[in-house]
C-alpha cells in the first residue's frame, strides 16, 4: 500500500488532478518501486538488444574480418571506409527516399481505410478481415506474391494492361532500374497498411460518441469534420504511426532481399541490405557494424525531426 498511506495527508489543499496526474511530484514520492514495474521490460530489452548493440559497437571500432585472425583496434577507420564508398551514398539516398515516400503513404492510406471502415455496411466485416491479410505474411511470402503480380510475362498487371490495350510489349517492372524501386515501395506499403488500419480504428473507436454527434450537427462537410474534430483526437496515434513506419521503412530488409536482391544494379539497394552485404557477403563485420551505427544516427535524427514537425501530447506533462 505504498501509495495509499499518505494519499490523504494534504487532501483538500490541491485539486485532485494535479495531485495524481502525470508530472505531479507527489504521486511519484509515494510509489517507491518503479523498478518492479519496469524491470520486466528493461531486463529483456537490455539483455537481447542492449548488450548486442554494445557488442556491435565494439565490432565497429575493430577490424573484424573472417579471413584475418586477430581483431585489432582501428578506431574510426571502418566508419571512414564505409562513408567513402559510392555504395553508401546510393544506399543512403535510396533508403531516405524510400522512407520519405513509404511512411506518409502507409499512414495516409491506413487512416483513410480505417475511417472508411468505421461505419457498418453490408459486407463491412469481410472487408475488415481482408484488410488484415497482408499482415499475416512473412516478408519472403509477400515478396513472392508481388514478384508474381509484377512478372513481365505472366503477371496480372501486364496482363490487364495488355487486355485493355494500354501497352503492346511487356513492361519489365522489376528488371528496370526506374520502376523496380517503386514496385518494391508498393509491396512494402501493402505489407504495412493493416497495422496502421488497426491502430487508427482503435483510436477512432476511443473518441467520445457525443463529440462526433456534436460535430455531425456543426460541420456539414465530411472533410472539415475529419480535419477539425476527428484528427485532433487521433493525432497522438498518427504521430506514433508515422515514427514507427519511418523506422520500419528505413530498416526494412527481407522484402527487398527477396524481391530484387538489391538490383537491378543498385536501384533497390537500401542501407539495411548493404549492412547485410558488408557483413555476410564480404565477411567484413567491422564495416557492417559501422554502417549500422551510421544508420542509427541518421534514423535518430530523422525521428527527432518527425516528432518536432508533428507535435503530440505523448510526452506532455498531463494525461489527455
Amino acid at each position, binding site marked *: *500500500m*505504498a501509495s*495509499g498511506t499518505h*494519499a490523504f495527508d494534504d487532501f483538500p489543499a490541491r485539486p*485532485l488532478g494535479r495531485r*495524481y*496526474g502525470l*508530472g505531479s511530484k507527489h504521486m511519484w514520492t509515494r*510509489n517507491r518501486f*518503479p523498478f518492479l*514495474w519496469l524491470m*520486466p*521490460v*528493461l531486463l529483456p*530489452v537490455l539483455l*537481447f*538488444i542492449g548488450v548486442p*548493440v554494445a*557488442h*556491435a559497437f565494439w*565490432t565497429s571500432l575493430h577490424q573484424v574480418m573472417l579471413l584475418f585472425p586477430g581483431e585489432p583496434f582501428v578506431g574510426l577507420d571502418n566508419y571512414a571506409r564505409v562513408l567513402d564508398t559510392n555504395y553508401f551514398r546510393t544506399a543512403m539516398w535510396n533508403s531516405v527516399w524510400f522512407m520519405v515516400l513509404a511512411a506518409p503513404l502507409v499512414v495516409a492510406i491506413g487512416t483513410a481505410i480505417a475511417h*472508411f471502415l468505421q461505419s457498418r*455496411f453490408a459486407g463491412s466485416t469481410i472487408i*475488415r478481415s*481482408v*484488410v488484415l*491479410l*497482408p*499482415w*499475416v*505474411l*512473412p*516478408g519472403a*511470402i509477400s515478396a513472392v*506474391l508481388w514478384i*508474381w*503480380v509484377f512478372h513481365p510475362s505472366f503477371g496480372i498487371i501486364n496482363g490487364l494492361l495488355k487486355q485493355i490495350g494500354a501497352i503492346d510489349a511487356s513492361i519489365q517492372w522489376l528488371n528496370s532500374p526506374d520502376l523496380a524501386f517503386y514496385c518494391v515501395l508498393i509491396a512494402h506499403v501493402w505489407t504495412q497498411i*493493416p497495422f496502421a488500419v*488497426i491502430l487508427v480504428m*482503435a483510436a477512432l*473507436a*476511443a*473518441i*467520445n460518441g457525443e463529440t*462526433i454527434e456534436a460535430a455531425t450537427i456543426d460541420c456539414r462537410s465530411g472533410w472539415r*469534420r475529419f480535419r477539425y474534430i476527428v484528427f485532433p483526437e487521433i493525432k*497522438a*496515434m498518427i504521430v*506514433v504511426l508515422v515514427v514507427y513506419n519511418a*523506422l520500419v521503412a528505413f530498416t526494412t*530488409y527481407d522484402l527487398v532481399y*527477396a524481391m530484387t536482391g538489391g538490383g537491378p544494379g543498385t536501384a533497390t539497394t537500401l542501407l*539495411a541490405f548493404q*549492412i547485410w552485404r558488408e*557483413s555476410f557477403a564480404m565477411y567484413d563485420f567491422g564495416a557492417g557494424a559501422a554502417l*549500422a*551505427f551510421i544508420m542509427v544516427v541518421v534514423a*535518430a535524427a530523422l525521428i527527432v525531426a518527425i516528432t518536432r514537425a508533428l507535435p503530440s501530447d*505523448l510526452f506532455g506533462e498531463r*494525461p489527455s
Partner: protein
Amino acid sequence: MSWRRRRPMSTFLISALIFAFAGGPVLLALYGSVVPDRVLLSPERSVFSEGISLENYRYIFTGQLPASYEVEGAQRSMISEAARQVPRSLWNSARIAAAAMVLNIVLGAPAAYFFARYAFPGKRMSFMFIILSPLVPTAALVVPVYLIMQQLGLIGSVWGIILVHTAQALPFTVLILSVFFRRLPAELFEAAILDRCNAFQSFVRIALPLALPSIGATGLFAFMLSYSEYMFALVLSGEASSRPVSVVMAALARNTDVSWSLLNTGIFIAIIPTLILVVLVWRFVVEGLVSGSVKG
C-alpha cells in the same frame, strides 16, 4: 452512431478497391495453388478449360508426387522437399509467436501503465532507451545475439527465438499500450485512490479490464512480428524440424527451380492458420472497441 451518410454506390466501389488491393495478391496465390504450372504459364489455357487440381496440396501433406512429375523425363527438381516442411514449420511458428505474444502482454502491460500514469526520476531516459533500442538494424545484431544464445545454450531451441522476438516487440508493446492507457479518464484512477487501491490494484482492477481490446490488438501485433520475423529465426533455429515458417518459406521462395504452383500451395497453406486466428481475434478486438468500453 452514424458517422456520415453515404451513397451505396461509392461505398461499394471503395470496398471493391480495398478488397482488390489488400486481397488480390493472396487470391492470386490461391489461384496459382490449384492450377498446374502448364496452365499457369500458358496464355491459351485457363482454369476453365483444365479444371482445378489439388495435387500440390496432396503432395505437401502426404508426399505423393503430382501425376505430371511421375512421367519419364519430367523436371524432378521443380518439386522441392522443403515444401513438405511447411505444415510442421507452421506448428513451430505458432508456438513461438503465441509464447512471444503472452510474454509481451505480461511483461509489457505493467510497464506501459506505469509510463502512462506516473512520473518518476529517469522516466524520459528509460522511455527513450526502450523506444530507441529497435533503431539498430537487426543485421548488425545477428552475430552478438547468436553469441549470447550460445552462452545460454539456447541455439536450436524455440526458447532462444521466443526470447529475442519478445525483446524485439516489447518496445512497441510499451509504446502503443501507454498511448492507450493515457486515454483512460483520469477520474477513474482518482476514484481508485480514494477507495485506497494501491498502484497495482488500480492497474489490475481498472486499467486492465478497460484496455482489454487494445491489449488484444497489441498482443496480436507481437504475434505477427514474431510470426514474420526472418533473420533471427534463421540463425537461431537448428535442424529442419525446428524451423519456423518464415525460414522454410524463404528457402522455398529463393529456390528458382521450384514449380510456381507448388510455391503458391506452400504460401496458401502458410496463410490459412493465421488467417483463422486473425479473424477470431479481430472479432473479439473489434467488438470490444465498438461496444465502447474505452470511450474517454
